[in-house]
């Protein structure tokens, strides 16, 4: 337990170390999520397009 809190204390540099690692982690999680959402919305749009096209044909 003590080791853990000492670890998070980072010898007094907690704000700086965790501020850096935290933001980096946040960005590296958010970026893939945004990329994934972009992909989902593109796929949705394309499926709609395909459906419209096939309706027009029939």
């Amino acid at each position, binding site marked *: 337990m003590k080791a853990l809190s000492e670890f998070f204390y980072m*010898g007094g540099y907690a*704000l*700086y170390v965790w501020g850096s690692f935290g933001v980096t982690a946040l960005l590296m999680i958010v970026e893939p999520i945004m990329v994934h959402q972009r992909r989902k919305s*593109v796929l949705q749009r394309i499926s709609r397009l395909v459906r419209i096209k096939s309706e027009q044909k029939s």
Partner: protein
Amino acid sequence: MSGRIFNIYRFSSPATFYPLAGKIARIAAWIALLLLAVGLYMSFFVAPTDYKQGEGYRIIFIHVPAAWMSMFIYLVMAFWAGIGLVFNTRLSSMMAQALAPTGAIMTFIALWTGAFWGKPMWGAWWVWDARLTSELILFFLYIGFIALQGAIDDNRRADRAGAVLLLVGVVNIPIIYFSVKWWNTLHQGASVSIKNGSSMSTIMLQAMLVMTFAFWAYSIAVSLYRVRSIILEREKDARWVSELPEVGR
């Protein structure tokens, strides 16, 4: 992605590149996860506390890889843009476009971690030092490229305009780097020199290298994943897109 010569033409077609990019992206993502885990473990538990900077120095393990990636990605973008402009291949312009946000994020991380490092070490969030300034300018270059692409509706125009900008920007990078350096040496300013006394121990260097490769793999994975969406957006009228398995639903 360079591939063998006779493969280049084949893979410069979006239809063949699309599935390939998916495969590479998946592999790169796993490599990134693995290396990140190892790298983080090494940087927090294996690497010893610095005798001068205490625990604060651990920021180096993301700061330096991010700073390196930020510059490298710009070069890669310029390379693709040049190819796109000369050979008029759509795919290479898409690659440039896909890399830009990742590059901007890397630049931002380098700036942010640098600032969070600077406060305890130098006592200021920001000083007008050579590297800091040139990194800030690099950030502007990225944002400029993204903004330019965003402002143009027409894809082909966006590609070509972006390419001109990237190529002009890449000429500028060495100029900035050296000019800023020169400018600053005239002013022995309030800034502490980045090359601090403590020479890096091997274990630190190893951890940093692992993190660098992790960032590398991460960038490849994310940008290839993004280029797949871009390909779909641009080719949405093409036959092969409507026949993709993931479109069917």
